[in-house]
């Protein structure tokens, strides 16, 4: 099974952040949770441009936290929204919901 979060990357991050690591994780989780909700909202409005931008930002921050699969899903959303493909986006957002729960669990327990 693939890890939701790359433990090696996380260890390096802990080293960099020292005392602020927990705060960083909390910031990331709160930020991402809000973005996931926003993506759903934007999808109902079919605002593809905003979907692309938010997915891009989420891709960046998730990569920094070592959440490889979530990063990859964000990348796919970014690509799909460029082509205005509604169908695929629906499925991808559901996958993001699931993956985010796993990432959240992994980060909160590390």
């Amino acid at each position, binding site marked *: 099974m693939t890890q939701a979060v790359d433990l090696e990357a996380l260890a390096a*991050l802990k080293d*960099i952040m020292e005392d*602020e690591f927990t705060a960083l994780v909390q*910031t990331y989780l709160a930020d991402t949770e809000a973005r996931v909700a926003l993506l759903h909202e934007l999808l109902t409005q079919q605002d593809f441009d905003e979907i692309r931008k938010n997915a891009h*930002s989420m*891709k960046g*921050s998730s*990569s*920094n936290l*070592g959440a490889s699969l979530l990063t990859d899903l964000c990348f796919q959303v970014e690509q799909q929204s460029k082509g205005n493909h509604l169908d695929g986006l629906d499925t991808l957002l559901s996958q993001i919901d699931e993956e985010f729960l796993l990432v959240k669990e992994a980060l909160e327990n590390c």
Partner: protein
Amino acid sequence: MAVPYVLKVLIADDTDSDRLILESIVKREGHEVVCARDGLEAVELFKSTAPDIVLLDAMMPRLDGLGAAKQIKELAGDELVPIIFLTSLTDTESLVKCLEAGGDDFLSKPYNRFIIQAKIKAFKRMREMHVTLHRQRNEIALHNEHLLQEQTVAKQVFDNIAHSGCLDAANVKYLLSPLAVFNGDVLVAGIRPSGNMMVLLGDFTGHGLPAAIGAMPLATSFYGMVQKGFALVDVLREINQKLKSILPVGVFCCACIVDMDFVKRRIKVWNGGLPDCYLYRAKTGEVEPVRSTHLPLGVQGDKAFRDDCVYLEMDLGDRFFMWSDGIVESRNHEGGMYGEERLRRVFDSNDASGNLFDEIIADVHDYSGEGCRDDDLSLVELKMVEPHEVDASVDALSGHVSTGLMEWALDFEVKPSTFRLFDPLPLLLNILVEVPGLRRHSGSLYTILAELYSNALEHGVLGLKSEWKESPEGFSRYYTERTERLRVLIDGFVSFHLSHKTTADGGSLLIRVGDSGGGFSHVEKLNVGHKTEGYSGRGIPLIRTLCESLRYIDNGSQVEAVFSWSNDQ
């Protein structure tokens, strides 16, 4: 301005977690961090905190990274503020846009602290070099401005001295770059009280201020002395000695000096180190070169200095040419040199009516082609003309005097040791030309003083008989005796009494010359203007035409002349 060890780094990213990570990495390197959440905030923070390096997320609300980068680059102006884009953008088009907006580099997510450290270090070095470069560039610009300013002032001072002469006289043509003095070229011309024109063309070794510096004393000595009636040789020796004492070894002045006598129609030339001068005969079209036979000025001390000159007769319309080596050493595109042969050919192919001066310049230009600069070309043409053609341009020079000596008297006595060594006339004339109005009569005054002085010295003090001069043998005897008697002379004097007063429309100068001799017998005859057969006229008829009155007093050992002048003349 030095780049401090601790840099101020501006980080702009709307994603909080990414910003926190980057902030931590940069702070760990020991740098100071300021944070912005969007492009507008980034621009404001840039203005208020002046960071050394800017890290910009490409995508941000309100104003994105591209827009912020453009504004920041504009605000930074001359200063190099590296902008690094934070991006996970991967397509080439987006990356190119970042560069066009002023980005210097990229940093991709996920962040790698080692890459970040390396980039910050590299840009810090680049910024240091840029700051150094700018500081040095500004220093150089400042130095250059300074130098140009100095040259302008130096040129002004020099022009004020050099242009007080008669370069604009009708018989003089010259080509001289406005900045010639910084090429070491100098041209001065003045009229002596006798009406002779003295011209000096000099070429100092080197370029720039070192070459120009010697031109100042040269020009001041030249004008000071020429105006007071000093002879060519005196002027030459004075300049040589002055240059020798002030110039460092290896710096000297190649020069040619000419004294033109328009009455006797002949010139006296001394050439030390300049290329051959040419005397061009208008009638036959022949050219007579005058070679340099001396070392340049400022090389030898006064004792070793040789002042022998060449004398040349000139007819009306004959022309004398002088040039610095800039003419013969003009180069063409192939690096060839113009040379003396080509110059000579211009003269030979001239049809005698042609304008030689312009032809020479045109030929040099033809040879050296488009890129030719006149900076180094100095050329003078002096034409033999009637005396009155020169006079007109000279009078204009003395028209502006208004103050100076007014009423005064002076007694001056010359003793035997001085007779042998020193000509007192320039000294006296020096004082006389300080009187406004008298300066333009310095020629007449010189003639009067010279005649009266030599009469007093030769006939009075030395007792030489003027009638000797009437036969060739006597003439020679006269001068042999003069030298011998001067040598053994122990007692005697010549005294001058000069007194000047102003009148309503001018002034009057009384000149009384006395001597220690025994006078002579035909005083009365001379005083009433009788012909004095058997006696030499002592030059008196000539003086009488110049003076208002002239009479001998007592037994003839004193003579009194009154010279009057008016402002209207």
